[in-house]
């Protein structure tokens, strides 16, 4: 028995609740990809031409600080959505994404996805709703990180 891309996507928590038509739209702009350990999924500054839903493996979001080397800002894991620079101008990746293990993921083409969400507003709403949840949670987490709560009390 083979599993179709729609079925793979439908089984992901990120897309829970999407109807079959929207899953089919997603599948039409998606392809499964793999990234070897140690390779970059994308580079800071490159055109954000895709986002990735991680199926297996771990990815580090990194920023290089000259003189200090790459700084890991966050790690992402199976089930996480990687990449949101495709959503807003100037559509360029803000960080490096480095595969910490062998990674399997679904790659969504950004141009096609943007066009699909603009054409089908309901699809667009459903998609943005899910991205908004990710964004808010990650920002909250980032702020908590910023507080350095394990640091020495002053």
């Amino acid at each position, binding site marked *: 028995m083979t599993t179709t891309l729609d079925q793979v996507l439908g089984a992901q928590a990120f897309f829970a609740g999407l109807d079959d038509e929207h899953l089919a739209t997603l599948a039409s702009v998606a392809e499964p990809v793999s990234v070897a350990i140690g390779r970059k999924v994308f*580079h800071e*500054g*490159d055109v954000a031409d895709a986002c990735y839903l991680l199926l297996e493996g771990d990815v580090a979001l990194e*920023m290089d600080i*000259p003189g200090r080397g790459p700084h890991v800002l966050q790690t992402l894991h199976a089930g996480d959505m990687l990449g949101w620079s495709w959503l807003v101008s100037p559509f360029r990746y803000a960080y*490096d994404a480095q595969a910490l293990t062998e990674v399997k993921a679904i790659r969504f083409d950004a141009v096609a996805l943007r066009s699909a969400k603009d054409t089908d507003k309901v699809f667009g709403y459903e998609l943005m709703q899910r991205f908004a949840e990710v964004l808010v949670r990650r920002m909250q987490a980032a702020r908590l990180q910023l507080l350095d709560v394990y640091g020495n009390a002053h």
Partner: protein
Amino acid sequence: MATLTELTPKLAPMEPVPFVVRSIRDELSDTFTLELDPPDGVFEFLPGQFTMLYVFGIGEVPISVSGDPAQPSTLVQTIRGVGAVTYALRQVRPGDVVGVRGPFGTEWPLAEADGHDIVFVAGGIGLAPLRPAIYSVLANRQRYGKVVLLYGARSPSDMLFTQELLEWGGRYDVDVLITVDNADRQWRGAVGVVTKLVRRAPFDPHDTVAMVCGPEVMMRFSAQELEGRGVPQHRIHLSMERNMKCGIGLCGHCQFGGRFVCWQGPVFSYDELAPLLLVKEV
């Protein structure tokens, strides 16, 4: 590209010249300013240039000039203590002698900015290399359109030159916007990264020359924000930090891609740098 010979028509200085320390003043817990008396009574420099400061027998470090170019009778340098030589510089007392080579390097594009708006974006100690340009612009205020200074510091107690920031901020013809990364409730100002100030700063992006100085990551993001607002890359200028040792283009340490930061920089236009800034470990 200008050749080295064109830029340094005479043999470049290899020996430090003794300057007498007139004063040393703490700016922050780790940052201090030296005032030095040039032996000839005059030290001419262009805003943005740096010198190599030498402590007898200890070593030499590149330090940007932070004083007023209209006051060449004193060499003013603001230094952060980060290593053996800067710690030794911290120990000098009035009357002591330190060695100086320079000035070296390129200047902030004040001539290019003539007739346009100016945005200074400074992060942390990056305000020091910009201060000579700010002095110069304020002394010739009528030449420019709007003048904006955006300054970001780690916390309120990490802000450099606070007295002057107050003074400049009090002028009607200068907009000073300040933000800190972290603050407690004593601080009534803005909290957030300096790049965020770019969006709300009052300048005409299509008629602006921007001068940016701070940690490389901060410059990278500030330049992107400026570009996002419509400032063309060639109108954005950054001051790069690399391992300057000889100051005269022949030790090789400060190369950034094909450029020698010591004499082709430290001030570069962003269009020269943008592609390389995205390559790691250049």
